[in-house]
């Protein structure tokens, strides 16, 4: 049981159902400015192509080189911007709730998308990035998280990360989904400075085309669990087996809504009619893993197919 800082049960249900959480503007402006100031060239960014920009950035000490497998508490120095950001109460609480208090560092990266004026010098054929799932096929029930930190405000024109809510439980092979140009309900990051998006490792996403005049920075860090991901959040209100599960299909219109159940059972507009039901089943399997309750169910989806007597 956990009563400390951390996500609520409803936030955990949203993460299980949709594969992401958004924390807008949680990093103080002074910290955003310090982080960006350390990344930008002393005389202002001037490179005309990404290769030149990364030649400079990869030598920047503000983003250290870290071995995969390092425990997060051992990754950054106390006066590093990134240490301060990851130590913010809301950020620390989210990390702890999802992957524990000493998760394993996988990798991090600074994504830079040049503004349109300079990108056009590099190529007249600039395009958005295809949708993809990071890493490779990953059949685990345990999951890593990817935190996306946007140190500057991201406008529509800046082509912030596009992502597909509810795609995280589909087991696909990286860019094999590149053909899926558009899906109903797709979203794009548009946010104030200092926002952090937390993705389940499987969430389909891709970078948009930066059509603004401003360079766009995105710092990403991937963290894996170092312990069972069971009830690590502020689970004071968790009920996995209600005394009287809510009726299904033939329901009482005046019945009080259960926000946790409703969140977990909310379909995405791009789900196929039949596959959407499989998505619900896979969410419930993940919910059982997270709650530690092997009998947890909603709307009878798992109990029905487990009623085996043969």
């Amino acid at each position: 049981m956990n009563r400390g800082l951390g996500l609520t049960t409803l936030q955990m249900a949203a993460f299980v159902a949709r594969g992401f959480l958004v924390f807008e503007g949680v990093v103080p402006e002074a910290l955003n400015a310090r982080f960006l100031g350390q990344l930008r060239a002393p005389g202002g960014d001037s490179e005309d192509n990404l290769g030149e920009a990364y030649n400079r950035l990869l030598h920047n000490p503000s983003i250290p080189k870290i071995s995969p497998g390092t425990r997060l508490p051992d990754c950054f120095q106390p006066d590093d911007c990134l240490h301060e950001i990851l130590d913010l109460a809301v950020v620390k609480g989210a990390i702890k709730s999802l992957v524990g208090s000493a998760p394993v560092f996988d990798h991090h990266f600074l994504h830079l998308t040049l503004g349109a004026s300079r990108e056009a010098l590099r190529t007249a054929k600039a395009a958005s990035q295809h949708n993809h799932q990071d890493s490779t096929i990953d059949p685990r029930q345990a999951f890593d998280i990817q935190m996306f930190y946007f140190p500057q405000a991201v406008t529509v024109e800046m082509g912030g990360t596009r992502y597909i809510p509810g795609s995280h439980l589909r087991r696909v092979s990286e860019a094999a989904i590149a053909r899926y140009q558009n899906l109903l309900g797709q979203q794009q990051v548009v946010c104030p400075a200092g926002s952090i998006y937390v993705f389940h490792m499987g969430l389909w996403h891709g970078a948009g085309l930066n059509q603004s005049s401003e360079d766009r920075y995105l710092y990403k860090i991937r963290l894996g669990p170092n312990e069972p991901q069971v009830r690590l959040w502020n689970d004071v209100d968790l009920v996995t087996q209600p005394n009287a599960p809510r009726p299904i299909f033939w329901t009482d219109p005046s019945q009080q809504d259960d926000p946790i159940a409703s969140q977990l059972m909310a379909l995405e507009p791009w789900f196929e009619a039949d596959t959407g039901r499989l998505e619900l089943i896979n969410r419930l399997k993940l919910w059982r893993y997270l709650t530690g309750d092997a009998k947890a169910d909603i709307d009878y989806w798992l109990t029905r197919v487990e009623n085996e007597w043969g």
Partner: protein
Amino acid sequence: MAARQKVLVLYLATSALDTPVIGWARYDGTGESRPMTGDADVPPYKTGVDALRDGWRLIQASPLVSHVSGEEFRTDYLKYEFFFEQWQSFEPSP
């Protein structure tokens, strides 16, 4: 007169062509447009049949595949993929 192919890929809610479009992709061999990922939030047609009525020619539909024993609940790629084409006359540059 030369011709160039345009391709439309529709992903539908079921295996039936008259069900809603849930995803889509376009490719333009004429070079007149340059579709890319994330370029539209509204599908070009409501259903696959609407694309037929607008002159698109269906050239491929994904088959229905049996579920592998033990993997019945696994989800991965979009299941109901339909490829359409149009041919457009094209005047090559001299």
